[in-house]
């Protein structure tokens, strides 16, 4: 399996966020997206997750399931926990387990065949299983959200600042899970400004220019869509 992103360009609200981002990543590799805040790391992840439309560029997955889009191979672990406070931790997690379409691929052996309760135990929040999510602390909510990745097998994990709100012990657990996902033939694309110690890591560095030579970029930057001549 290989994810190929070719000259991705992204605009949000008419604002050019980044352009011509090109990379490839194969099974058993991690891609860490690094750079200062507000530079478009999250936008790149959301583009790959299909949540923000690309303005131009191509994204393809080799060796995936034929009639599925790239986002349908992915788990997205973002800033929002997607938890319903009125449901218990177990109800929250079991829902995703029965709702999400799993992706089984040759060459990708995931340990994401855990039951919901086992996943909670793995993340050491088993004791909260029958508590409404409203009662969970920020770290516990984060771990509950992470548990979703363990109960549905999907080969690509897209993670936006995965270690935020986690204590040191949970962060070690997280790194262990990420490492075993990679070793099992999965792909991880993570944005972070903290160092993450993972095997087989590539880095994608986002850097901000000095602001003087951005004329060429702004030239066809019109806030409009496809036609470049409004300015």
């Amino acid at each position, binding site marked *: 399996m290989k994810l190929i992103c070719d000259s991705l360009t992204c605009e949000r609200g008419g604002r050019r966020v980044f352009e011509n981002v090109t990379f490839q990543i194969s099974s058993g590799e991690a891609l860490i997206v690094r750079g200062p805040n507000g530079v*478009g790391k999250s936008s790149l992840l959301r583009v790959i997750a299909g949540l923000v439309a690309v303005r131009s560029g191509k994204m393809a997955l080799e060796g995936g399931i034929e009639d599925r889009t790239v986002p349908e191979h992915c788990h997205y672990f973002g800033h929002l926990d997607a938890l319903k406070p009125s449901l218990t931790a177990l109800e929250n997690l079991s829902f995703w387990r029965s709702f999400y379409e799993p992706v089984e691929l040759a060459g990708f052996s995931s340990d994401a065949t855990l039951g919901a309760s086992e996943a909670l135990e793995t993340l050491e929040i088993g004791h909260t299983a029958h508590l409404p999510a409203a009662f969970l602390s920020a770290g516990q909510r984060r771990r509950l959200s992470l548990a979703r990745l363990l109960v549905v097998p999907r080969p690509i994990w897209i993670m936006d600042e995965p270690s935020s709100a986690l204590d040191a012990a949970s962060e070690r657990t997280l790194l262990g899970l990420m490492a075993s996902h990679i070793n099992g033939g999965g792909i991880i694309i993570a944005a972070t400004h903290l160092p993450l110690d993972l095997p087989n890591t590539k880095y994608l560095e986002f850097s*901000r220019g000095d602001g003087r030579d951005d004329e060429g970029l702004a030239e066809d930057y019109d806030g409009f869509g*496809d036609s470049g001549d409004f300015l």
Partner: protein
Amino acid sequence: MTLYDLANPTRFLSLVERIMPWLIGATVLALATGLYMAFFYAPEDYQQGVTVRIMFVHVPSAWLALLCYAMMAGSSIGTLVWKHPLADVSAKAAAPLGAAFTFLALFSGSIWAKPMWGTWWVWDARLTSFLVLFIMYLGIIALWRTMDDPIKAAKANAILTLVGVINLPIIKFSVDWWNTLHQPASVFRTDGPALHSSILVPLLVMAGAFTLFFIMMHLMFMRNEIYARRIRAMRMRAASAAQPHANVTAQIREV
């Protein structure tokens, strides 16, 4: 010039600049002719007297109210299917025009109703349908105005407009049905005896004049909207020059 060339706003604007004087001239001429005919050529009604002349504003307005919605629906398809940026602009420009024509149809209907039926408003099937249409136009305008991002606003509005256009016949049908239920004797018939040419001709001229007026205003509104978006783009550019968001480079590095 193909439709594809028109996708280019600059070319579109220069085309608008070229045809605008002719369009204004034609509109003024048609409107003057139409009004002259409406006042001096068309006869008075033997029952309604001079008030029948309101028809020469009322009917063309009603026709334009529907044409504007058709224009928005066509543009909405352009937005959703071809993602044509000018389609967004066209849909947005047509909404206030449609609302204005619908209002004019309601208003002229109302001042016509007063001498005819002795009341400012009757829940006549056609007036009621136009009232519903008016609310739909205002809803669409409100949705345009509440969404900041023009691209997302265009898509949301396109979906709403198309749902509206699918529902309009159902609304019209149900209102007609409701009206016959409560008011069996129809007070206003369009399928009556054929209009005499002394009325029909001025009516057609006025309808033509209104259509020209609509095209002129629509192009002007589109031009304004393009300028508004340019201003928006320039402001954004100014903001990002101070804090260079745009100039992001991404490099892949194997470690």
